[in-house]
């Protein structure tokens, strides 16, 4: 099961990379300047490796970069290149990356989110 999850994750990753690059390019050239901003996102049931990978994947997601991971609070600090709809962006992250990662790298008892 896990290899399949990992493979799906990898494919999503590559796809997101391409989308990310192009979206960023679009944000650069489009006439309206993007309105960047910071946002927090809580995560659940991920160990250190899992949340790190999540952070990486987020960084690859169009327009988002992980700034900080607070494992004690179970929080990610993100920078959005275009902060018009933070909730939507976060929702995308949860569905695309967080869930598969929770299956691959579930947190031990020490970190239950």
């Amino acid at each position, binding site marked *: 099961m896990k290899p399949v999850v990992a493979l799906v994750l990898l494919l999503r990753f590559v796809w997101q990379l391409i989308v990310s690059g192009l979206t960023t390019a679009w944000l650069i050239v489009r006439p309206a300047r993007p309105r960047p901003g910071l946002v927090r996102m809580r995560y659940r049931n991920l160990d*250190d*490796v899992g*949340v*790190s*990978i999540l*952070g*990486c994947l987020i960084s690859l997601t169009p327009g988002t970069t*992980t*700034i*900080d*991971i*607070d*494992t004690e609070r179970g929080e990610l*600090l993100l920078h959005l290149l275009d902060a018009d709809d933070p909730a939507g962006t976060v929702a995308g992250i949860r569905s695309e990356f967080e869930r598969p990662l929770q299956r691959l790298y579930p947190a031990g008892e020490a970190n239950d989110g």
Partner: protein
Amino acid sequence: MTPRALILTVAARAIYPLMLLVSAWILLRGHNEPGGGFIGGMVAVSATAMLAVAHGADVAMGRMPGGAMRLATAGVLLSLISGLPALFLGLPYMTHLWGTLPLGFTDVDVSTVLLFDIGVFAAVWGALGGVCASAIAIDEAVR
């Protein structure tokens, strides 16, 4: 913001061996393609530097075989020694010897050249890796 960059810490564990692998590859093929002991060593140095940033200088130096100073000196010593066999054969110093090592399933070309280049690799990695890691260590305490 937390003082620790978790992503770097975690990623470094994976990237470090990868970079060493790349450096060894660069070292071994250097006689025929761009690369060689020095460039391979430099890649290893950057691996050590990365590890030092991620996990601290002491960890990075601990991961160098034998520690920085010993690795560097042993490397130079290896290069120096690789030229000595020739002297016993009455050839000038640093005359490289080539031979084939039969391993049963395949034959491997071995030479003192490779020893020399490995010595270069170790010397560069040990010395410059040591310098880089120690430089990073200078300011670790205040972070």
